């Protein structure tokens, strides 16, 4: 046993202990300390990030529920609401990849059901270290299997996500999960619902065990050190079958109007669910721990209070509805137990264990009055040097055809089929566009509407310039959604960073938030919520600043949705947007020149938005035969992906008089590659001109080969083999 005082072992600072003392007017007991340690952890309290997050735009005409609840919600018209949120489960995944990732899926799905919505889609943005390393391959395999093992078993399709590989993510993989749900807008279970004093707190779902104790305070709010396997008991174990039953039972309870409130049990377990429910209602609560169904009989009160056992929900139920609630839960085979009630009065959360009161604290002080820190910030020393050494002006000796193949085979670019074929992407019957595209499209039953969903993060750009990287991530997510013809509506974000107590990390964080805020304002896509994941580092080496954007868009008629694949021969291919000499932070620079340096491409938010408007307008008038975002690997990779997806070659010549490798591989922003039938080329050009989007006719689709005029040509089958084969070969089949 350590001689360290209990509060320090639990992750609380001396100052925080003083705050607790002054709130209570006495010393907290051990149970209360455990409750504060969980709720005031970085993971639950956002104490380092709160000041910055307040600068994000969160309001807009379509926002029904903004940040601060289990998930955000936007209006889709026709009385429908989309509920969505993204979360990280990186720390548990670093310790135990299968269960870490699986329980991440479970947690975000429960956030969606808490709002009364049926989960209809999952997306999984992931970052790992290079696949040349055996541990990274093990982590990738485990995380993917865990996501599939859980997601496939609960009947929610995994329709998208993205994966990047970079050395700084070796020690700490980044595992984010986004879930999207659907509900009638009037049935959303929001904080605005009327709840009554005396209403019962009903815990239903799995029994409570010893797993996941310290998940938020030990695992998620500290850096990973040696002896990771010793932290395995802090990782929760998932039971997707119980989750599936929980989904059905919860939705039935909501649909039948049996609930006043609903909340999932995630980080900080029962303590979080009860204190947040009470605090939101402006009430206190009483909880009897003897009424909590336990998996093993001898749990201590603090263990019951902070256990992160999965697949549990807490409902607020009027007394006269309790029998009905029991009936629904029992039909789905789920134990349910009234463990307490909301109370009027001074807002105290009183916890009893039999006859003994084991904790008595103001609910608000746990849920809403955690510490807020203004952390010091300074740019890292090497920030300027990295920008100065721009690969755009490097001497390149690699022939462009070799560089092209190297890019197609780079794990960042190559097909992720090996990953997404392990996910059920079609259950529920709504998947109009499946993984492997710019954005996934999931239709809404009974309508012609579909949601367009994309997750994006720009690792290298963010490493070199966190502000630009974050803004680019929003731009690319919106562009991906717009490429399908859908209008971007709102975002959720997952902000993955190192240790916020280090000024350089805090600077990266603040810059990233500023980038997201500026881009979201420009695109009118407010932030409806998200998650902050700090302490993603081992030793003193942090992950790259990794803000991941989950964008939700809407297309009114999914039959007009545009795909990335070339649709046969004889279409004219256009570049929308302009290519500049911008190889800073590019895939080409890293893969071919071996350097992550230079200034990331400039981003003009107005120019970017004009492109989105054109993509949406063109899709609405059925103008495009294909449309594909132009990003990693530049025009060359964008054209190749459209060719591979459509099984059709092309002939193209590049605009401007830049060197070939710049024209092919520059990653200038605000570009897309589209194709049209020749009869409508004039219409395209007129529309682009009217909407102030530069365009250039690259060439024409057709034939079995891809041809870059005057540079090189290859068979579509050959490039497809590189693109599809690269990752399976690295993983050994």
């Amino acid at each position, binding site marked *: 046993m350590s001689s360290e005082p209990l509060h320090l072992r639990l992750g609380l600072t001396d100052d925080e202990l003083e705050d607790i003392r002054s709130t209570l007017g006495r010393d907290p007991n051990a149970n209360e300390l455990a409750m504060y340690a969980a709720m005031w952890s970085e993971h639950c309290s956002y104490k380092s990030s709160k000041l910055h997050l307040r600068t994000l735009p969160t309001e807009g005409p379509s926002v029904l529920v903004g940040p601060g609840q289990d998930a955000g919600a936007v209006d889709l018209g026709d009385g429908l609401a989309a509920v969505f949120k993204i979360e990280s489960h990186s720390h548990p995944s670093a310790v135990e990849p299968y269960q870490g990732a699986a329980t991440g899926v479970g947690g975000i799905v429960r956030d969606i059901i808490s709002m009364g919505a049926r989960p209809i889609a999952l997306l999984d943005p992931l970052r790992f270290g290079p696949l040349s390393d055996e541990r990274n391959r093990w982590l990738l395999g485990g995380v993917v299997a865990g996501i599939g093992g859980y997601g496939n078993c609960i009947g929610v399709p995994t329709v998208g996500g993205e994966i990047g590989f970079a050395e700084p993510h070796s020690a700490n993989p980044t595992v984010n999960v986004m879930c999207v749900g659907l509900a009638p807008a009037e049935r959303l279970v929001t904080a605005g619902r009327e709840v009554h004093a005396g209403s019962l707190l009903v815990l239903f779902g799995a029994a409570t065990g010893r797993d996941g104790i310290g998940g938020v305070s030990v695992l998620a709010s500290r850096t990973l050190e040696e002896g990771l396997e010793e932290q395995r008991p802090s990782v929760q174990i998932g039971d997707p079958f119980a989750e599936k039953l929980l989904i059905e039972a919860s939705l039935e309870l909501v649909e039948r109007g049996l609930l006043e409130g609903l909340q999932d049990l995630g980080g900080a377990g029962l303590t979080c669910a009860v204190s947040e429910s009470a605090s939101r209602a402006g009430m206190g609560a009483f909880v009897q721990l003897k009424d909590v169904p336990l998996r093993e009989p001898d749990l201590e009160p603090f263990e019951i209070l902070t256990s992160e056992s999965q697949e549990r929900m807490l409902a607020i139920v009027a007394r006269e509805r309790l029998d009905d609630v029991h009936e629904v839960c029992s039909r789905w085979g789920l134990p349910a137990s009234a463990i307490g009630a909301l109370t009027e009065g001074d807002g105290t959360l009183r916890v009893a264990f039999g006859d003994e009161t084991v904790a008595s604290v103001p609910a608000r002080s746990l849920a809403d009055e955690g510490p807020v820190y203004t952390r010091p910030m300074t740019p890292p020393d090497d920030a300027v040097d990295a920008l100065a050494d721009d690969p755009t002006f490097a001497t390149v000796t690699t022939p462009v055809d070799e560089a092209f193949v190297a890019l197609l085979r780079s794990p960042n670019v190559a097909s992720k089929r090996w990953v997404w*074929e392990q996910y059920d992407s079609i259950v529920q019957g709504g998947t109009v566009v499946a993984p492997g595209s710019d954005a996934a499209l999931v239709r809404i039953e009974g309508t012609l509407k579909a949601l367009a969903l994309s997750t994006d993060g720009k690792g290298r750009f963010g490493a070199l310039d966190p502000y630009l990287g974050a803004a680019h991530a929003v731009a690319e997510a919106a562009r991906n959604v717009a490429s399908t013809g859908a209008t971007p509506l709102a975002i959720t974000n997952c902000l993955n960073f190192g240790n916020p107590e280090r000024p350089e990390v805090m600077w990266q964080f603040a810059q990233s938030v500023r980038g997201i805020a500026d881009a979201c304002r420009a695109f009118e896509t407010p932030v409806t919520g998200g998650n902050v994941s700090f302490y993603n580092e081992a030793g003193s080496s942090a992950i790259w600043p990794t803000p991941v954007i989950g964008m939700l868009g809407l297309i009114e008629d999914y039959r007009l949705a545009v795909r990335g694949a070339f649709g046969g021969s004889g279409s004219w291919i256009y570049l929308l947007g302009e290519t500049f000499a911008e190889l800073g932070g590019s895939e080409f620079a890293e893969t071919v020149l071996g350097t992550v340096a230079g200034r990331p491409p400039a981003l003009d938010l107005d120019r970017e938005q004009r492109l989105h408007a054109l993509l949406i307008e063109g899709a609405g008038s059925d103008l495009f035969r294909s449309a594909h975002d132009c990003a990693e690997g530049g025009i060359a990779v964008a054209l190749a992906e459209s060719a591979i997806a459509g099984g059709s070659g092309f002939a193209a010549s590049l605009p401007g008089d830049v060197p070939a490798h710049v024209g092919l591989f520059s990653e200038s922003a605000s570009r897309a590659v589209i194709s049209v039938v020749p009869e409508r080329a004039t219409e395209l050009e007129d529309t682009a001109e009217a909407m102030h989007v530069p365009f250039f006719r690259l060439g024409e689709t057709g034939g079995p080969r891809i041809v870059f005029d005057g540079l090189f040509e290859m068979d579509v089958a050959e490039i497809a083999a590189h693109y599809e084969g690269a990752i399976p070969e690295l993983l050994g089949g």
Partner: protein
Amino acid sequence: MNGGAVTDRPPRVGVVTFPGSLDDRDALRAVRFMGGEGVPLWHAERDLRGADAVILPGGFSYGDYLRCGAIARFAPIMDEVRAFAEAGGPVVGICNGFQILCEAGLLPGALIRNRQLRFVCRWVDVRVETSASPLTGEIVAGDVLRVPVKHGEGQFVASAAELERIEAERLVVFRYCRPDGSPADDANPNGASNHIAGIRNDAGNVVGLMPHPEHAVDPDVGATGGQPMFASLLSIALARAA
């Protein structure tokens, strides 16, 4: 259609929901899409609610923590399904439903972990081997249909003697194949013996398959290889309704 059976109601196709069933709603939707009436059935009830045909849908019944389908076969409704099948009623097991039918002894063989040891979700082609099944009555043997698979335990296996009998009695209904109809390892998503994707019982009224025809009827979300299968099922159900 099947001797011109006439009835004034659409054929009723029951779809059983076990705890952990996932594609039950999708099967009901596919029945409706193809013009039938979808009838939800509940695992704990001993009632097929007048269904003319029964589908055991995909999913992970009871979590499938033991062997896939091993617990579902003991569900109360399975007594009714067994009696219905023994009386000649058309019964279809899709994916987990196929696993349940094998566990229940209504179909020969078993389904084990995919050869590559990973879950697989992809579109495949299957060749129809016989018209003598509830899903293929209106399909000519040799036709190739495009349908999706999504499973972790879909590798069909049987003892050498059983496999020989299955082939000799022409119990194979679907075989994984290339688009040209030739069975091949590269077209087989799970390593199934003899590329078997689906089989029937001796009487020809019970069929199980790993692919998901219910996800292949609506052209807005993919290929439509499931349409002729559902058309065949509705046709035979209609004949029984008459």
